[in-house]
């Protein structure tokens, strides 16, 4: 399933970037609210350098952008609407697949009932 309007390379970078739980978590945090690398680092049991490295991988995949503000580096979700939309649609797609799976469980649990 190739995300429309992205090249295969870009898609590969995105999914490589998202293959790590910490990076997914960082991405969701900065999509919801931009924040500095040090603020992010305080939320994980790992070094500042390790968090910075994760941010760099997300940045290469164009999932986040990093800008300097004084001594802080501010990370935010990529403003490219299509790009962000494609990423978010991935999440919603997974949600709906989960819902369909759970509906099947509800239906299976009813068998033998009055159905």
């Amino acid at each position, binding site marked *: 399933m190739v995300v429309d309007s992205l090249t295969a390379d870009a898609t590969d970078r995105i999914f490589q970037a998202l293959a790590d739980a910490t990076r997914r978590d960082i991405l969701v945090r900065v*999509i919801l609210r931009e924040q500095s690398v040090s603020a992010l680092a305080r939320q994980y049991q790992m070094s500042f350098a390790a968090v910075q490295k994760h941010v760099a991988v997300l940045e290469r995949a164009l999932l986040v952008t990093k800008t300097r503000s004084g001594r802080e580096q501010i990370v935010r979700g990529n403003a490219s609407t299509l790009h*962000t*939309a494609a990423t978010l649609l991935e999440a919603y*797609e997974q*949600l709906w697949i989960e819902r369909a799976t759970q509906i099947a469980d509800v239906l299976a649990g009813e068998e033998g009932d009055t159905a």
Partner: protein
Amino acid sequence: MTVVSSTKDPATLTLTLVADFDASPERVWDVWEDPRKLERWWGPPTYPATFTRHEFVVGGESRYFMTGPSGETPRGWWRIKAIEKPHLLEFANGFAGDDGEPAPGIEPAAGHVTFEAVGSGTRMTTVTHFVDVAQMETMLGMGMQEGMAQAIGQIDALLVQSPV
């Protein structure tokens, strides 16, 4: 359950999922109409939903909250726009504030669901249309992190087949 197809259109912010169930349209419809059944599947596994109101009539409203792994309770609402039992359901689904009521300034997403008898089973098509990316991001905060986390391993899941 078989996911027949899943289509994402970033240009129109629309997600369409087509799934087949081994049950009649009436039974599949019932998992939407009966709030006790609905809350067994509406939330992601780690964010089970509780519906405190569910008026399944045109113009009717629903209120629900989900309970996350850390005890957080994001809230949401529905407003039903069209009902043709057991064929068609249209509803708005929005983000609610801490009081459980629709949050001002955040447009709801539009859901359009159809149920079609296919053989002895049912083909359910859900179309979710979002207004803008900001809305998607806000609603993503409602327990969707888990969905995001799991989305990744599913990149080849265009045709997911799993036993019922």
